[in-house]
């Protein structure tokens, strides 16, 4: 394993995956909170024509040209979505789907044109479909890190403006913030994050890099800042893991492996996070129900004792069952363990009888202390 880390390509890949993860995790948090989860999908598919255009303009596979092209068409796609939403009666799902598929179609057409005319370079372009980490160059890394750091710096600088605009755009407008402009900047930054990740994860799967880290992080924290940081870290982690596996096993596309790592992390988060996780909340629900049942059973025993004017009245378990509406045995046992009730089986043919203990009576408040006279 250690030998791996000293390998030049592997180092490049890990660094690239780190950058990809940090930006897509951080910006994806905002995308998801603003309910624009699938925007990432549209942006990544819309990057395809830009990649082809960049290649055509530059004449070769020059990463800055490809990325610039991708960013331009991605932003154009976002603008198209806004245009469709604002000026027609199409709804957001249709607008996103239209932009996604049409820009991608243009990309397919351009790609075929490139294939027809250019010759050798196009193989490199195809790697953008599913990502091929091994194809990344050190020089690519320089470009990527500059862009990544710039966008993270911008995020930090405009943090509170993005926060309030995402949470309550109406209020943000009322305090004079340029909401439309901020939205545009945020969209451009999400587009940049998407474009940065394309080389590693590919066009098709980039949307997962935007959505999954945010969803996973949200399960662990209730604060925006920790959620964003955690999302960035989880995305980076998945990126590194996926990239490493891909680098070691030839012929496995990087993108799917990263996404699978991310999916595992997300599922684990959804299931096991404290408080919000499925297991935790199901346990909490069970506990609440148990508490409720315990209170109800204590009330039932007390009520029966009062009716019969006998603090030590023994209630037949069947009666408690029917009063509770479900079988009371487990609840009674739990209460017994807590010392609040005790059982009496002196008439075995009639099944167990139960009554409140002294502690139980006290817990219920003093209606039975005097031996029954209320």
């Amino acid at each position, binding site marked *: 394993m250690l030998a791996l880390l000293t390998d030049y390509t592997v180092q490049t890949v890990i660094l690239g995956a780190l950058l990809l993860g940090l930006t897509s995790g951080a910006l994806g948090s905002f995308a998801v909170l603003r309910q624009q989860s*699938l925007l990432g999908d549209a942006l990544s598919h819309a990057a395809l024509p830009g990649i082809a255009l960049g290649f055509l303009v530059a004449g070769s596979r020059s990463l800055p040209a490809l990325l610039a092209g991708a960013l331009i068409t991605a932003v154009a796609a976002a603008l198209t979505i806004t245009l469709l939403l604002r000026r027609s009666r199409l709804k957001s799902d249709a607008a996103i789907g239209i932009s996604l598929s049409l820009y991608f179609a243009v990309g397919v057409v351009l790609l075929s044109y490139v294939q027809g005319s250019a010759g050798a370079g196009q193989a490199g372009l195809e790697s953008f479909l599913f990502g091929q980490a091994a194809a990344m160059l050190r020089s690519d890394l320089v470009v990527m890190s500059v862009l990544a750091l710039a966008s993270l710096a911008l995020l930090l600088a405009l943090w509170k403006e993005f926060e309030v605009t995402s949470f309550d755009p109406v209020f943000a407008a009322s305090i004079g913030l340029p909401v439309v402009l901020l939205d545009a900047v945020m969209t451009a930054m999400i587009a940049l994050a998407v474009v940065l990740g394309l080389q590693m994860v590919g066009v098709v799967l980039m949307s997962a890099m935007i959505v999954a880290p945010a969803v996973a992080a949200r399960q662990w924290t209730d604060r925006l800042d920790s959620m964003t940081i955690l999302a960035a870290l989880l995305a980076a982690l998945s990126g590194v893991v996926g990239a490493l596996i891909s680098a070691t096993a030839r012929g496995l596309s990087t993108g799917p492996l990263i996404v699978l790592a991310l999916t595992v992390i997300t599922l684990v988060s959804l299931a096991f996070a404290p408080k919000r996780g499925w297991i935790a909340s199901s346990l909490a629900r069970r506990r609440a129900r148990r508490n409720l049942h315990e209170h109800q059973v204590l009330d039932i025993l007390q009520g029966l004792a009062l009716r019969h004017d006998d603090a030590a009245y023994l209630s037949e378990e069947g009666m408690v069952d029917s009063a509770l509406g479900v079988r009371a045995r487990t609840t009674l046992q739990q209460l017994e363990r807590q010392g609040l009730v005790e059982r009496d089986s002196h008439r075995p043919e009639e099944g167990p009888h139960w009554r409140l203990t002294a502690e139980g009576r006290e817990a219920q408040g003093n209606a039975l202390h005097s031996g029954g006279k209320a």
Partner: protein
Amino acid sequence: MADVFASIPFTIIATGALVGVAASLLGTFLVLRRSSLTTDAIGHAIVLGIVLVWLATGATSGPVQLLGAAAAGVATVLLADALTRTKSVRTDAAIGLVFPALFSIGVVLLNVFARSVHIDAHTVLLGEIGFIWLDTVSIAGLQVPDALLWIFVVTILNLVFVTVFFKELELSTFDPALATAFGLAPAALGVGLLVLTSVTAVASFDAVGVVLFVAFAIVPPSAAYLISDRLSHILGISSAIAVASSVSGYGLAVAMDVSIGGMMAVMTGVFLTLAFLLSPRYGLVAQELRRRADLVLGENRALAVHLCQHEDDPNAGEENVLTALQTHLRWEDNKARKVVARCVDGGWILRDGSRLVLTDMGRAAAIEILQPSK
């Protein structure tokens, strides 16, 4: 008859047209239900279905594939739905989580097991009509008639479904609550829609690949939705657009030597743009005309109201005069003259020397504003 099938253009155009019709028949309902992106999810997830079926049975097309993929498509939507219901994840994010995960599993399996077979992820994504690295002549072999046959069957299937269940689909799309009350089981219809969408996606992947399938499913119905309000018309118009896109797309693609499938999809976009701009009811041009008309109406009303409010005024001689309009309504001289001329022409006011007098029609218009009826 066999000659027709030997004609490459015919088979290609026919396949494309049928994909378009089959997809848009179902897509119409998905767009109207705001579930356009289910096509995206299904389209990507069926890759897993295709791979699993191939691993299990060795089949790469045919009814088994159709069913297997249908199952995968439905499973995707059901999984996303289940995820949403846990309340941890929103609907859009749920989709963005599930389909990349399933797609990734599919691609990894492909990478590992299916290196050489004709199902490679690339083909699945871009389809064979669009796979221009192959000589298009070879398509005239067995594959197009095969794909053509299956897409034909699926088109008939969809046509039958939409015709037989037209009323139920209509109601459950526009008023699901009412449909349930009528016992029309909108949920079952929804599942039926999903199954057929998945089946159509598989039948299409041979021809156009999954992403272009999304274009065919969403774009023509969206264009039709911008043109008409009637469901039956929308279905008809979108089918017509699908066919027209197929024909024109083929022609242009051959002329420019680019991806045929891609060009067909791009043409659907062209038709959408035309509808977006020129639709007599909802197009951009129509909107602008309406906006101007509203502006004009607003100005006319302002004049009428002003005159009406000062009619019984002793100063009416000063108030209801052209020059007074400039001070009171803050209109420039030109604008004031234009509005007055319009109102005179429209029969709202009369000139009495330099005074402006309301006619009965003008007064009625003013009163409408001054005393809005509830």
